[in-house]
């Protein structure tokens, strides 16, 4: 019987830097969980009781879940602080990637506004060109032909075949 490690499962295969345990990094999800749990608890307390038809109030379930989320967040913080584990870290973000991400989110917001004022076909072709440019596409094929063809396909599928009011 073979006892060799399974390839790609991470046993000794990930780069060392990616596997260094970080206490602070693990605190972020715990703090986020605490914040969401606390907010949910406050909001749950404001749910109207209504006409109590049963012994359980409509607040009962969300309040319980909010407390559970806070408890789990504290548990996670405690465990990862006491025994930091070398889990596989996600692929590292790049500075260019962060800029790309912000630009793409801005383009999507801009599209929301543009769609309100300009015809769907025009605004969508502009968005396609913008997204392609931000992603690194250059030249007339990427910035002109591709947006026009994909917008046409999109409009044909949703606007014509599925009759979505675009």
């Amino acid at each position, binding site marked *: 019987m073979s006892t060799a490690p399974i390839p790609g499962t991470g046993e000794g295969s990930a780069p060392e830097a990616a596997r260094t345990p970080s206490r602070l990094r693990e605190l972020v999800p715990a703090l986020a969980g605490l914040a969401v749990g606390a907010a949910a608890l406050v909001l749950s307390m404001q749910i109207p009781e209504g006409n109590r038809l049963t012994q359980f109030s409509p607040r009962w379930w969300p309040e319980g879940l909010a407390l559970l989320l806070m408890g789990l967040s504290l548990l996670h913080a405690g465990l990862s602080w006491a025994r930091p584990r070398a889990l596989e870290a996600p692929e590292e973000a790049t500075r260019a990637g962060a800029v790309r991400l912000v630009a793409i989110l801005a383009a999507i917001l801009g599209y929301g506004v543009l769609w309100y004022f300009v015809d769907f076909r025009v605004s969508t072709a502009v968005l396609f060109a913008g997204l392609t440019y931000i992603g690194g596409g250059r030249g007339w094929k990427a910035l002109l032909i591709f947006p026009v063809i*994909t917008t046409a396909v999109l409009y044909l599928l949703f606007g014509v075949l599925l009759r979505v009011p675009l």
Partner: protein
Amino acid sequence: MSPLIEGFGALLDPTVALCIAAGAVLGMLVGAFPGVTATMAVALASGFTLSLDPIPGLAVLLTIYVAANFGDRVPAILINTPGTPASIATTFDGYAMAKQGRAGLALTASAFASAWGTLVGIALLMVAAIPLSQLALNFGPAEMFALVVFGLTMMIGVSGGKITKGLMAGVLGLLLGAVGRDPITGVARFTFGVPELSEGIPFIAAIIGLFGIAEVLDQILTHRRSGVTPITQFGKWLPTRKDWRTMLKPLAVGSGVGGVVGVVPATGGDIAGILGWDQARRASKTPEEFGKGSLEGITAADTSSNATLGGSVTTTLALGIPGDSVMAVMIGSMVVWGIQPGPSLFANQPDLVYSIAGIMLIATVLTLGISLLRMRGVVKLLDLPRHFLWAVILVFCMVGTYAISNNIFDVGIMLAFGLVGLFLRRFGIPAGPVVLGLILGKLAEGNLRRSLEIGGVSNILTSPLAMTILTISVLALVVPPLRESWKRRRARTRATQPDTADRDTLTP
């Protein structure tokens, strides 16, 4: 009329054939593009299939599900990158075979193994779905609540070393599921006066955000130019008689492992592929060749991975608990079509089992045919720049989500969930339990409250079935970390033993 004839008869509509063909092409393509998972593709397709009737809609979604599990083998073999997580184990031997100049054989063997695995899964669906749903019809609120907990804990238990994060994600999903009207009293909760939220968070939009948008945003954030060049030397394509004989045992092992894993809620082809590969290695006469280009290895991995499909569909439809993440997404679409997965579905519509099995059967045969076409053209697709893919996915996600209810509010929800999904991804929190919690939240709350109203906690404690399911759920959470800890301890002990032995030999 017999449900079998009625079920298969529903597929005679030409629209269904067209939908299967479209789904097959789309599924093969999304499978072949690394970074576009089957879950994401089905989520994306949900946007524009909701306007179809249930059977044609299911034909598109199920065929994408099947075909993506064929297409994803191509990049796994040619560039050592799984097209979807289900083909992780394909890379173990597939890429090694390709590097040895046997890419053609690897692709063909993989296609046959995948087809065989899917057929085994379909047989399981046809045999087990109705009896399982009949058994589940006897479930009361206590058992249904236990079943929801079971589904959630299985998804968390298999999220490898992330138990607390998985639990946090599951609870967050349940909290999000509490948005909207209280399931018993109808009181509005967390709606902030927004009428669109009174029915709860639109889960198709949330799912597209969590799986589609988050994946693309993560790729945008981390993308670097890849230095991997696809394999271009394919060698021979068809297996010889000797190759077929070699493939028999792993086909059997993979079918068994995949069939069992598929029925377990929330576990998918990725886990089954690795388990099937490992079991075939243990059963092989040449285990040393596994991971170095073994035909047995690739056959077992792909058979096992695809044998989960039928089991996943069975669990989803018969119990209402998603068999894997794709099924979690598909439940969302089914609910919109008025198909409520759960024990009563097959009691009311037994023909649906056969329609679904028929769709999957046709999809498998069609996709096998496409897979056996020489894949040289796909190599060019693998070189397609990422910015085209990002733009297409982002815009299709937005327009697809808008098309669900012609409401821009849903698009906003989708984008917000995309950012939440990105956060979860960056901090290693699994998104699966969030979706499961969101979908099953109302079911869990309603059944728990009903159960407690009827007879208090003892109603759950005195139900042998509910207690068995809950015990398995607890074990699913507790056993993996305990086993890990035991393994680590044993490894430490082994590491210190040679030192002791050295000292012993030095001692006079």
